């Protein structure tokens, strides 16, 4: 741990929190650290947070926290502007990290739009584009995955952005973390679980509570989708079901892999 220099008055790092296409649940979840919220806010100058204040976004800031997927040209411009101004960009939540739920519309956006809005989408929708994660538009320094985020993980990442960290994000997948909880395996009773290919780091909370992993932490870059399909098939499941389940939080990544002709 590096020695932390406390900011003197007026020099606290300025943090902005930008909400894009999302349910705002990750922002709400930050407030759920309740007892510690003031301690966290005491370390920063929270210069813009639409959820809590109608003050407009300032021109200058140090850290940009971005929730939500980029689904419009306007959002892309906001993200680019944030990247230019901030020394550090943190993407929070599945939507910002993987495209998440909005990402499901990435494949054939026009058809989705037509089904919802008919011939023309209302102006308020903005200039729609196929949803992508923040990292598809600008470089992202830190990512807090999951739907919703673990707010304490957010605080750890914010600390890392402010003070540095000796933590290395792992790309191993969830099964191993789940085994530590010693709760057995969903595949044993024929229940599909995406822990086979989903990034670890959440502590396998859902499986520990009796729910299979739905992949909200996103497909690991080292996820072995082909082997996972084999496991699903061997456990008596249709591979198509596995693929559909995986697409919920990974539609963008899977489409990109298909384009590359990859096997994943």
């Amino acid at each position, binding site marked *: 741990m590096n020695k*932390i220099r406390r900011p003197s008055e007026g020099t606290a790092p300025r943090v902005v929190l930008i909400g894009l296409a999302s349910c705002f649940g990750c922002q709400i979840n930050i407030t759920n650290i309740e007892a510690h919220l003031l301690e966290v806010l005491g370390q920063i100058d929270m210069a813009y947070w639409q959820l809590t204040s109608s003050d407009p976004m300032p021109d200058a800031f140090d850290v940009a926290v971005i929730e939500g997927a980029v689904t419009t040209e306007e959002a892309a411009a906001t993200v680019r502007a944030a990247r230019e101004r901030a020394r550090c960009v943190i993407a929070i939540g599945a939507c910002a990290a993987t495209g998440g739920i909005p990402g499901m519309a990435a494949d054939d956006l026009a058809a989705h739009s037509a089904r919802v809005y008919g011939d023309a989408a209302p102006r308020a929708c903005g200039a729609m584009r196929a949803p992508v994660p923040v990292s598809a538009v600008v470089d992202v320094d830190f990512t807090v995955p999951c739907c919703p985020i673990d707010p304490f993980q957010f605080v750890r990442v914010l*600390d890392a952005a402010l*003070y540095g960290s000796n933590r290395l994000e792992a*790309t*191993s997948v969830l*099964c191993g973390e789940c*085994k530590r909880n*010693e709760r057995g*395996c969903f595949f044993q009773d024929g229940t599909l679980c995406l822990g086979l290919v989903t990034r670890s780091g959440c502590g396998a909370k859902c499986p520990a509570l009796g729910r299979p992993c739905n992949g909200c932490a996103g497909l690991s870059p080292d996820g072995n989708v082909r082997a996972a399909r084999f496991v699903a098939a061997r456990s008596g499941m249709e591979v198509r079901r596995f693929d559909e389940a995986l697409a919920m939080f990974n539609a963008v990544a899977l489409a990109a892999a298909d384009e590359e002709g990859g096997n994943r």
Partner: protein
Amino acid sequence: MLYRVIDRDDLPSLVAAFMERYEVIAPVKRGAGYVFSPVGSFDEICIDYPSTIASPKKYLLPPTETLFEFDAVENAVTDYTEEVRPRVLFGVHACDINGLMNLGSVFADPRYPDPYFQAHRGATLIVGVGCMPSEHCFCNLMDSEEARPGYDLFLTAIGERYLVSIGSVVGANILEGACDVREATDGDRIAFRAATRARQEAFNPAIPDIQEIPMLMDAFHEDAFWGELGERCLSCNACASVCPTCYCFDIRDTLDPGGVSGRRERVWDACTSPQFAMVAGGHNFRPTATERVRHRMYHKLNGFLATHDRSLCVGCGRCAAACKVDISPIEVLRFFERKGADDAC
């Protein structure tokens, strides 16, 4: 070694005697499996369990352990003095006792003695229990089917009695205080031999007994077999999570939400983790799952021998049960069985 005989009905009072002074950790049923867990009464214990999902290692090398606490603003460090809880690991199989012996030889290395492990180990009594092998067990092939040192008491069921091997004075005193302890009779000795014979014959014959495993590991280092394992490895570390002898860890700092105080923690890590061999500058000297799986098998079946004179793998079979894609030392033994066979292609 000293041997005594107790009745099966004596076990509850033995456990109760331990509970007076120790937290008792024992195998209990959870879902479709078994786990080592603190117990409040003898009735919770499943003494005839086949295996547990993960090993009892977690009580000596916790998945996350604070090494010290710090104040990041003052740049001050506080030695961490967690009160180590006196515990009894009750009902540990021979493979796991050998696994704990292996961990002991790592963490007691005089060059780098580990005070954290040793504090836990020093406060822990071990009561072993004989077992019958299940599908994935191959401790007999890893020289781990018997616990020689490494326990305070070891119970082997002989009908409605237990032959108790006594490994420590503390164990003997608690045993004698709690149970009606008898000298073994000729009948007990015959029953014991019958029990060991039955166990010996119960190992899964489909797991091949291979000689010269360490040399074979070297001889077939470049074989395409490792690529086959690597192609199907999920990079999940389930093998390491359940293994009684994986002891690798990462070190990381965790700041409290206030950003002032924090803890330096060690957390389990594993050579199957993609970033395990990444060094400063970002170079990863085992970048593929093939290299990582092979490395894991080497350490388990070959590498540990050089410094500790025994195989690190104790043949508990947990990784074989945990791995969704059938990667385990058993597959390595089967590979060697195929190599050099008359009908091999």
